[in-house]
């Protein structure tokens, strides 16, 4: 066992604040990360997403909340799931959308990120949804852009909408976040999903356990208030939700562990291992999955899996974010 636990006073204070600070809007023009959101803002997004999810269940899945608004999806890194989810969310809110991928942008000609974005901004978009391989790229853009910037994943830093949809999925099934035990297992070091989820879950009062080989544990992470272990059994014991993180095969040349076979034997989520969790445990994965590496197929496809629910909820949560940043409180999006 390699347990590392530190109380996070600020996080606890945030958790305590959840019911006492009602908010009806986000404080900034951007969504850069969970780090910048208060617990009350997180609750606002999740509550708004409830209404947005209802829109997706209608025969006509469209509301006029973002009519006349322009959203540019700037993906400097390959993505199918997140980009599609954002695009569907934008269209359901009636925004005009534009997709720009790195391979078709002037970045490949040597243009700087700042110049690329300044050129796009000259055409007056309202929101930029940005994915980039550099941590902090969205912070950099938010400082130099008039438009709102939504972080759709920056390097190894944050993927806030993923954490929000994960939280939405847990809350939808369990009715709450505070007091739940959530185990997150896999490549902790390189995961932006992990960072956003840790920040969110700790802020909302959940008990978070991280599990992975010590070679893939970020230095100093215990200060976030989580428990860290290299024992899957310990992490999963009594868990309400288990999130599996993808082993990023393209990064594994660094020799973080000897083989995929050994990884699965030690850290892979199997039915036997998940049986230590609560009977109604949720099995989660942000995708894409490596079956037989971090998760066994019968777990991924089993009755406890909410992996496809996460995908569906992603649209609702992203609609909520778009609405809160560009729609304005005066709109009745779900009306």
């Amino acid at each position, binding site marked *: 066992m390699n347990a590392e636990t530190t109380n996070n006073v600020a996080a606890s204070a945030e958790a305590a604040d959840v019911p006492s600070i009602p908010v009806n809007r986000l404080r900034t023009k951007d969504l850069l990360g969970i*780090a910048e959101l208060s617990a009350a803002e997180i609750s606002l997004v999740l509550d708004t997403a409830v209404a947005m999810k209802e829109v997706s269940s209608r025969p006509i899945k469209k509301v006029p909340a973002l009519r006349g608004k322009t959203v540019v999806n700037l993906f400097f890194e390959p993505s199918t799931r997140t980009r599609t989810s954002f695009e569907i969310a934008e269209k359901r809110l009636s925004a005009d959308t534009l997709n720009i991928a790195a391979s078709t942008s002037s970045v490949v000609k040597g243009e*700087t*990120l*700042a110049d690329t974005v300044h050129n796009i901004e000259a055409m007056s978009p309202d929101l930029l949804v940005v994915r*980039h391989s*550099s*941590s*902090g*790229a969205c*912070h*950099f853009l938010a*400082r130099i852009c008039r438009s709102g910037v939504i972080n759709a994943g*920056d*390097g*190894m*830093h*944050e993927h806030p909408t993923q954490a929000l949809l994960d939280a939405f999925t847990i809350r939808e099934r369990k009715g709450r976040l505070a007091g739940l035990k959530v185990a997150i297992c896999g490549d902790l070091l390189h995961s*932006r999903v992990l*960072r956003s989820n840790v920040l969110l879950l700790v802020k909302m009062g959940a008990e978070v356990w991280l599990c992975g080989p010590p070679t893939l544990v*970020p*230095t*100093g*992470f215990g*200060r*976030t208030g989580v428990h860290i272990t290299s024992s899957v059994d310990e992490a999963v014991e009594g868990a309400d939700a288990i999130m599996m993180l993808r082993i990023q095969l393209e990064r594994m040349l660094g020799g973080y562990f000897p083989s995929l076979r050994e990884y699965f034997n030690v850290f892979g989520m199997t039915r036997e291992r998940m049986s230590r969790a609560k009977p109604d445990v949720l099995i989660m994965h942000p995708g894409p999955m490596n079956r037989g590496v971090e998760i066994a197929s019968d777990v991924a496809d089993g009755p406890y899996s909410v992996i496809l629910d996460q995908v569906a909820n992603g649209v609702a949560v992203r609609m909520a974010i778009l609405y809160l940043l560009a729609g304005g409180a005066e709109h009745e999006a779900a009306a």
Partner: protein
Amino acid sequence: MKRLLRGGHLVDPVQGIDGVTDVLLDGERVAAVGRDLQVDADVEVVNVPVGCVVCPGFIDMHVHLREPGQEHKETIATGTAAAAAGGFTAVACMPNTSPVNDSASVTRAILEKAAVEATVRVYPIGCVTKGMKGESLSEIADLRAAGCVAISDDGRPVMTALLMRRALEYAGMFGIPVIDHCEEPSLKGEGVAHEGYTASMLGLRGIPSAAESIMVERNIALAEMTGSPVHIAHLSTRQSLRAVRAAKARGVRVTCEVAPHHFTLTDERLAGPVSYDTNLKMNPPLRERQDVDAILLGLRAGTIDAIATDHAPHQEDEKHVEFDRAPFGIIGLETAVPLSLDRLVHAGVLTMRRLVQLLSVNPARILGVPGGNLRPNRPADITILAPEVTTSVDVRQSRSKSRNSPFHGWTLKGAVAATIVGGRTVYVNQVVPNATVFGAAAGPA
């Protein structure tokens, strides 16, 4: 022409002076030092403004002047003008120019340019290895004969222990130090920030402290084996400091320097108020609070020999990019002394006497160059401080060609009043009351 600096508070540790003392200059040299010096009527008398401290000229032993090859970032003219404004009367320039300074012809070119354009003295540092490739030794005798005062592959370490051993043995023949950028490349990897909580939360690849201290330990072992002097550039971690302290205690010829940003800032700054500010990206990276505290103790205790800026100019467009794509380094010539006065002297960490040792006495001793004291017949290189005057850092006013400083907008207690090189006033700070008594600032020699 003789000039008498009258009534200033002279701090000259070598002569054991720390009090009101006159300094008589005769042309390029110091003629006399003493209380109430009597001079002839034709001597120009300069009454040092109240509160000013007169020191032997400060020497920055770690500067990147970028010329030849990267004149868009800095030139010998602009870099030395910034040095003068920062209170330095001499700088030692690192060899990672383009071409690198691995031959006497490059050394001579630097010195010839400096003779015409430099505002302060320039001491070239030559490469340890040809082309800075880490494969075979440069012609060190040639470099020394041409004017190099040390050798270094700064920007990268001397890769193999065997080559470092040879460098120490060979350079030892000429009595010049090997200055090493201590970094174990495989541990540093693609790191861009100190490996710790902040980098983890920001998703930045980390550079562990051990990447530095392993090389420091290696170099100490080799200095101990060869008996030759090794100088550790820009030391940044408490582990490195512990190694140096232990080595010094057993008589190893090791010296080290720290940069002002490493005793002023911690890695937590990367998280805000301007997150991912590329002006906070330097190598070695900003470390943790415990490292900063250890450096402050090391400065006080004498384990650290020198304060050097690692002045690393980069153009704004090079830094106006994503954090991991920005080059390492910040400018530091004009902020080093105000930071030292504010954070070290006024904070009670150091006495003024100890600060002068770190900025003047020891750099001169380590490099074996003139200066470090104001004894009669020594060069009249003088730094005059106004410790009580407030400095507002405004990089837009910098003499450097580059603006990459994290200290823009800072207010610091302590300023440079004037800089005198070879008896000529080369910088006067108009903000310091009555500093104009030191005369109009002359340009390059």
